[in-house]
């Protein structure tokens, strides 16, 4: 009996028993497991050999590809184009610097207890757009100008997603506040704005922004195509953002509003100092998720002729000197997006868990 009082009986869960429990517990599980295992085995082998074994990694031109597997040479040869678009080569350090700043601002956010994490985050939200505004188009400080038509590739994708999210945040906040306002007309206007933007597909918004906007504006008032795409994306996104933030506002207990009022804080101070800081913190995961979906949706600018990363790949896979590289190109883009989105979504999930426990304490 002594052993029983200390430790549980060692149920030796060997691999056999584990499989019996987790793979072959009932007859239909046996069938399912076998079918799935067969499918995996038959498909994974060829995939691996296409991706790695038969693939060509080294070389500089189409002749270096055997054709048996993937032609990664194509990617490495055109990588500059995929990342920078037409951004002039000798100026690409500016973009690299922005990538670096982006990494400096946000990679520490994944590392708990990184000193100054919050400040770096703040820099990412406030400082980074300013730095980008100076660095990327050039102009001041003797930086040569690079027109927005030359931007492209991954860099353009990131710019669109980043500006889209940063700019839609304040508009989203205003809309959310408006939607919870006690003034029926303000509330109604906000509801209509939000619902209309959420109902229409992004590509119609982009189409309007890219070719029709000047028709609505007085003559002479004109922005660049990129700026107009950004306006479209931002307004569209702010409607989604408003709904996310509204969720946060609703979660703040009434007592907080009352306590702030009792201290004599007016509407804007009450919101700005007491309610919004709490509400925004609560919906960070929601904001991150919105960001991910926006990030994926930026690919649609391809349809209005901006060359984002998918656009650059699309435009090069038809290059006659490289044959049959479409799949490689798409896989490359898919991989880029996947790494970003999966990484960020994992981050948001961990945040969600953390905020969850924080709530209960």
């Amino acid at each position, binding site marked *: 009996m002594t052993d029983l009082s200390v430790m549980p009986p060692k149920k030796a869960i060997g691999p056999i028993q584990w499989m019996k429990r987790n793979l072959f517990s009932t007859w239909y599980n046996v069938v399912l497991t076998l079918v799935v295992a067969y499918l995996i085995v038959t498909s994974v082998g060829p995939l691996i050999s296409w991706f790695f074994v038969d693939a060509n990694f080294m070389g500089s031109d189409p002749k270096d590809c055997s054709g048996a597997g993937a032609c990664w040479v194509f990617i490495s040869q055109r990588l500059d184009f995929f990342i920078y678009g037409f951004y002039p080569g000798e100026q690409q350090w500016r973009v690299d610097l922005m990538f670096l700043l982006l990494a400096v601002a946000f990679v520490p956010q994944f590392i708990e207890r990184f000193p100054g994490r919050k400040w770096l985050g703040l820099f990412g939200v406030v400082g980074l757009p300013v730095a980008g505004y100076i660095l990327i188009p050039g102009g001041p400080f003797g930086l040569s100008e690079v027109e927005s038509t030359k931007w492209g590739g991954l860099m353009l994708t990131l710019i669109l997603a980043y500006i889209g999210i940063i700019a839609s945040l304040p508009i989203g906040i205003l809309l959310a506040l408006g939607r919870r306002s006690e003034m029926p007309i303000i509330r109604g206007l906000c509801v209509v704005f939000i619902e209309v933007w959420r109902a229409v597909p992004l590509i119609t918004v982009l189409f309007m922004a890219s070719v029709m906007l000047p028709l609505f504006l007085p003559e002479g008032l004109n922005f660049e195509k990129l700026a107009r795409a950004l306006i479209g994306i931002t307004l569209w996104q702010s409607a989604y953002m408003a709904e996310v933030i509204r969720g946060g506002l609703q979660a703040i*207990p009434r*007592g*907080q509003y*009352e*306590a*702030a*009022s*009792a*201290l*004599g*804080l*007016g509407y804007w*101070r009450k919101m700005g*100092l*007491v309610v919004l*800081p*709490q509400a925004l*913190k609560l919906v960070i995961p929601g904001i991150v998720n919105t960001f991910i979906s926006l990030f994926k949706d930026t690919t649609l600018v391809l349809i209005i002729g901006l060359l984002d990363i998918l656009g650059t790949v699309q435009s090069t896979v038809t290059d006659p000197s490289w044959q049959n590289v479409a799949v490689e190109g798409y896989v490359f883009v898919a991989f880029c997006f996947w790494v970003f989105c999966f990484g960020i979504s994992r981050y948001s999930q961990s945040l969600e868990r953390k905020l969850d426990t*924080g709530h209960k*304490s």
Partner: protein
Amino acid sequence: MIRIEGVHKWYGGFHVLKNLNLTVRQGEKIVICGPSGSGKSTFIRCINRLEEHQHGSIIVDDIELTDDVRQIDSVRRDVGMVFQHFNLFPHLTVLENCCLAPVWVKKIPRKEAESTAMEYLERVRIPDQANKYPGQLSGGQQQRVAIARALCMKPKIMLFDEPTSALDPEMIAEVLDVMIELAGSGMTMLCVTHEMGFAKTVADRVIFMDAGEIVEQAPPQEFFSNPKEPRAQKFLQQILQH
């Protein structure tokens, strides 16, 4: 200090407050009690206009509470309030909670506001918790912070809405001690509470409300030992049974 005349209030068709009349002199301490739902909270919240009354007049420190936002603001500056559920701001430290209103509403320099805040935190005996967040404090400590936060605005009047009813028994004493001390310093106080010990110690008057009316007003000794109204008698019996 406070003059309340013929105040009525409705929630939709429901008549919560019925013809309330009350005058509170400076430095007076008043305890309000009554059965649940009798309108005590609503009444006390009308005094700093968290609720709007629909008839009658409430005059606080010579300012009448009307729709005028400036008047409401200046009344709120003079009236501190402590809630049942503390309602501290969880995203700010204790010290920041205390400084928020002085800095933003009274425009006092941050340094100065902080030193005042520390003073009041000492007075409620938790100066060492100043840099913690509310979530890290016990209920009793949180309620004391809430009192300090209200005091930091140097109000002329303090309103308490069942400040101890959400607390565990051990913590009730901590908070009551602070309140008794505060009463000793001559602050005008209106307090909704069922703590008879507190009422007997500090109250100048006990007001008993039922169904939205002030049923009885009397000094605490008289009220507790010899209530006149049958409703008050019944209520006291229930409380004593408990």
